[in-house]
């Protein structure tokens, strides 16, 4: 009961760069899904290729990543994703309960 919990959220995008329907893409236009994982120490987000017909995400198709270490960066202004080896992060995610 006292184990640290993780919360998740997601957001769809139609493209890699902002366009007029980036805020509210129709289902058929969703090409990328951003999955966020947050704990009390960090927020980690991967923007992954998404197939709106099958609703499947392709974890090999990483469009972008975000990582914010909240102790030093509570405002989430300093993305340190590129400072970490992606495979190391993915291994850590896989070991989550």
């Amino acid at each position, binding site marked *: 009961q006292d184990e*640290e919990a993780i*919360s998740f959220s*997601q957001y769809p995008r139609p493209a890699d760069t902002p366009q007029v329907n980036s805020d*509210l*893409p129709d289902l058929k236009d969703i090409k990328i899904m*951003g999955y966020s994982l947050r704990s009390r120490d960090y927020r980690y987000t991967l923007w992954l290729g998404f197939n709106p017909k099958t609703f499947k995400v392709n974890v090999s198709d990483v469009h*972008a990543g975000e990582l914010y270490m909240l102790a030093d960066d509570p405002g989430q202004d300093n993305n340190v994703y590129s400072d970490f080896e992606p495979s190391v992060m993915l291994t850590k995610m896989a070991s989550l309960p």
Partner: protein
Amino acid sequence: ERRNVLFIMADDLRTSLGCYGDSVVKSPNIDQLASKSKVFLNAYAQVSWCCICLCSEILPRGNLLKLCFVLSQQAVCAPSRTSMLTSRRPDTTRLYDFKSYWRVHSGNYTTLPQYFKSQGYFTMSVGKVFHPGIASNHTDDYPYSWSIPAYHPASFRYEKEKMCKGEDGKLHANLLCAVNVTQQPGGTLPDMESTDEAVRLLKTRANDDVPFFLAVGFHKPHIPFRIPQEYLGLYPIEQMTLAPDPNVPKLLPPVAYNPWTDVRKRDDVQKLNISFPYGPIPKDFQLRIRQHYYAAVSYMDAQVGRLLRTLDELGLANSTTVVFTSDHGWSLGEHGEWAKYSNFDVTTHVPLIFFVPGVTSCHDQLRESTFPFIDPLTQSKPIFKIDKVMRNMVELVDVFPTVSYMAGLKAPQPCPDISFQKELCTEGNNLAYTFQHQEQG
């Protein structure tokens, strides 16, 4: 014994509340509610103890890495509300826009009010609870979820029309729309009308033995900021400040940035000729947006106060569980963004407050009332002690099982890994244990 439920949902309300540590906002009625409630400080999106592996079948052959993503709530109105009210994650509802009804699109998932109705409750909806339109079958999911058709305030039809007096003296569809209420159609505004109707409904249920579930969905602080102009006086513009980080971060991936298109479309914002997609909005206008948002929060807080006062006056405060939450948050200029269309914490962090009589508060029948109304316009900001908090992450899919249990019903069973065919189950946790458990660590 079964408790009544008063379920209050604000629209686009971030944790800009006194009880969540915001020192600028005046939200005395919600703060008073929080002082007698369990406050979940970190309600973002869903948290799940089990890990659903959705990706293994598309991993390249030979890759031994098994990734588990538990897919949960997104910061957009319709999927967010449907997800919360069905206690299913977006990848179960498969709703990523507001153009589908879950019972047709995905599965015949039971909703929170529907469950209460099936257990003998009289269920009622006032205002924006389900997302209107196709997303709730054009009926707010009546009759499944509600004993009577949902009520919507008549004055809402003016919300997107040209109701805001501009500098030219003409009416516009502005973002910033503080008005003289007496000059509005009907001399009212949607959340005032909703509160009037909710008060009326509470009076009809006061002496009925059948327990009730009343959901009240306020339309504020969603844009446009069409609010009584007197609330702006609580936030003098000279005292407003910009967001602490108002610039687009250099290392923010372009895909992560949301261009706040709905804000841009408002007449007063269009006149500013802001470049797409990064802007920025001129600083003085940024201050005015923040001022109007906070004023909208105070206005909504006053409506919550009116509702809770009525609950009290009718003698229902000691037999009614009150839940206060929001569908998602709103960016106020952080990272150069506005609105809600991102994964940042300001858009996903929401208030979640549970008042349970006899559990979070002991009602002393000999003393003063539980929820005396506090007028933010005339009364000084009271200080409330918020001491029943939970800091660990919780999810809005937890609301359904938790409300059920705290009202005296059995919480729905956890969903199986594949739950499309299962009508009643929950992908959230029953948080009832947290009401008696002291958080460690």
